[in-house]
């Protein structure tokens, strides 16, 4: 019973802005949940972190300064996305580089594979064996 009434999420995030910033950070108790979503009983970190968050928002600091304050206290791991600087730029670039590279490959493949069917001389019907093959392929493709 004592555990049940023990530490709980603080009555924090009184503003939407605090909630938005809180969604960009992890709770540092090791639960790997987003800070404002951490709900496990006995969490020793989220209460204090959320109180700090409210205080920082109330002080009028910008989002970046608030996040920086948390990084100073808890390390870069507290931010739930890789910082867009240095080596960590790769985290953001690579997925879109894969898409771009893939599009380039597809374009190259389509160009290499594209062989439009030759035009038939006017007035001539396709030979019977060609017709039979086309009929068979159409049946298969259906």
């Amino acid at each position, binding site marked *: *019973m004592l*555990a*049940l*009434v*023990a*530490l*709980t*999420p*603080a*009555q924090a*995030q009184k503003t939407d802005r605090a*909630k938005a910033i809180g*969604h*960009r950070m*992890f709770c540092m108790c*090791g*639960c*790997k*949940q*987003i800070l404002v*979503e951490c*709900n*496990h*009983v*006995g969490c020793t970190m989220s*209460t204090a972190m959320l109180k700090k968050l409210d205080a920082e928002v109330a002080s009028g600091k910008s989002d970046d300064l608030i996040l920086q304050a948390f990084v100073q206290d808890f*390390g*870069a*791991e*507290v*931010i*739930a*996305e*890789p*910082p867009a600087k*240095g*080596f*960590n730029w*790769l*985290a*953001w670039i*690579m*997925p*879109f580089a*894969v*898409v771009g590279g*893939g*599009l380039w490959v*597809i374009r190259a*493949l*389509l160009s*290499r*594979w*594209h*062989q*439009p*069917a030759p035009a038939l001389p006017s007035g001539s019907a396709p030979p019977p064996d060609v017709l039979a093959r086309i009929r068979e392929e159409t049946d*298969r*493709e*259906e």
Partner: protein
Amino acid sequence: MDLFGSFALLLAFACAGYAILAGLAGIRTRNPLLLKSARNAGMAVCILVVLGTASLVYLFYTNNFALAYVAEHSSRDLPSFYKLPALWSGQQGSLLFWSFLLSIYTFFVLFTNRGKHPELMPWVGVILASVQIFFLTLNCFVASPFSLLGAVGPSGAPMILARADGNGLNPLLQYPEMAAHPPNLYLGYTGFTIPFAFALAALLGRYPGEKWIHLTRRWTMVAWGFQSVGILLGAHWAYAVLGWGGYWAWDPVENASLMPWLTGTAFLHSVMMQEKRGMMKVWNIWLVFITFLLCILGTFLTRSGVVSSVHAFAQSSIGQWFAGFLVLILAVCLLAYFKNRDYLKSDNQLDSMVSRESSFLFNNLILLAACFAVLWGTLFPVISEAFTGNKISVGPPFFNKVNIPIGLFLLFLTGVGPLLAWRKTSADSLIRNFGWPLVGGALAGAAAFAGGFRHFYALICLALCVFVTLTIGGEFFRGAKVIRARTGMNWLSAVSELSLRNTRRYGGYVIHFGIVLIFVGLAGSAFNKDVQQAIHPGEQFSIGPYTLLCQEFETRQGPNYTAERATIEVTRNGKSLLMLYPERRQFNTANNETGTMVSIYSTAREDLYVVYAGRDPDSGAPIVHAYLNPLVKWIWIGGFVLILGTGLSILPNQRVAIVLSAARQYAEGGPAPATSPAPVSPYGAQH
């Protein structure tokens, strides 16, 4: 019984080894007796693994706490219903469960193909036995679930130490969904071994034609279907149980289940290019290899501790075994490919850029890009630390920013791809098929914008969902219209007849519609609201159109837990709607673990999701956290539709036999056919 179980697994290990050796010898010598005995050994593995698994189940139900695994994951007061899920709740038992499911799949593959495809099946048997022997090695020698609790006796000799009671099952697993989620997911993971085995067998045996794809299509659909159910059940469990208001946290273990699903989806699409046009042979072989590799990678991530996760098993040295197995599989695949790549030559020919072939290429690109983004984000913390020495995190903000645009493009392709013709799509066809859906999607988007809808991605998603729905509806409408005109059936019967004539195609459309509904549900998350309030009995607060009046807080006893429960009356516009009873439970386990019982009032428009969050540390006042989550229900409805579509696509086609029977009789000297031949039988031929 523990000795019996251990011995059964050892014998299974031996049979799997024999299946490999006899299979390889039989392939080399073309000795039918050797091949038959290898096949029988492969099937015998299933019987032995079933016996081994049944032994462990028996030990759970008889509360044999001399066994370390049973003592760790069960207890006397654990409800009987949960003693079975306890089997797979830990490392050793879940590995045995993997072997169990894989052996069942293997048995049915070998049994249903006995005497058929003599160039292919021996290789399939060898490959399946090879995968089995890896897991049986773990079951027998590395992570045995039959280890006994022991201690050194007074005489210095080891003795068995049976405990009076066990630690109990993790409370988070004591929910019906959690009983179903792992079996479905494991049926997906293990099921993907089958197409992998057939693909590698076709490559190794240089099996001619695309028959191996026909043989494995239904197995792949089954595995994919189970993987889908497993993922959805896991999401629903996270939503209904964990109490954080969401259903997907991009946790590494969640991502591990999504990645093979994405590549499996790509495979199910691109394999049609090989069937219809003989194209993309190399690509398809590697897609199915990668899908299987991702299944093994997924379980490696879960068990090795390489990435930290709330879902992971306790860190152990077993990760090294999986890493080694991954390297071995990759080496075998590479060797088989380089040795036999000339067998995979295909005449890749495209008549037009605007064709179904090109749409499948884009479809595959997007699915693989999504898979890469998930894998990259999951592993990046490890990669970054290795290169920079600094720890960083990659969580939902990253995955959402990267995957939402990718997902929306995939949704767009879902509407476009099926309506493009093979080889070439004419301009008339484009206008006919896409005209109205594009107009409908644009109008829906415009109407939503005019109505105050301003979230960019949600707006795009809505427009695309309408577009795709109209393209799918158009396909059913056009086909059913023709059948109605010929047969006079009503619309419902005509749609049913249409679907049963080409189950793969129309089952695919139903699956696509399920995906659309899931996207509708996902789009709703852009408008989630929540309120957290310390509240005493008699007090109330509002969220959206609902008012929550707290009536009381009480403590109650469960079979193996103590709970504190809030009784909340929900009203809307002054009218009482229902009562909700969110609670927190503390279980009688060794660690006094806790769990939540979320209360959800779910409608098509939104979910009112209420959690009892405990008590305020300063005032002691109970805290209730209420969420308003729009459109969540459509995710589960979409999942259900997706499964229905999967089932439909697995059914054999039922085709109408027209004309042929009368014409054949005439050719054989019978009466001349009527001028307007009627269908002989609505279900004359089965494919």
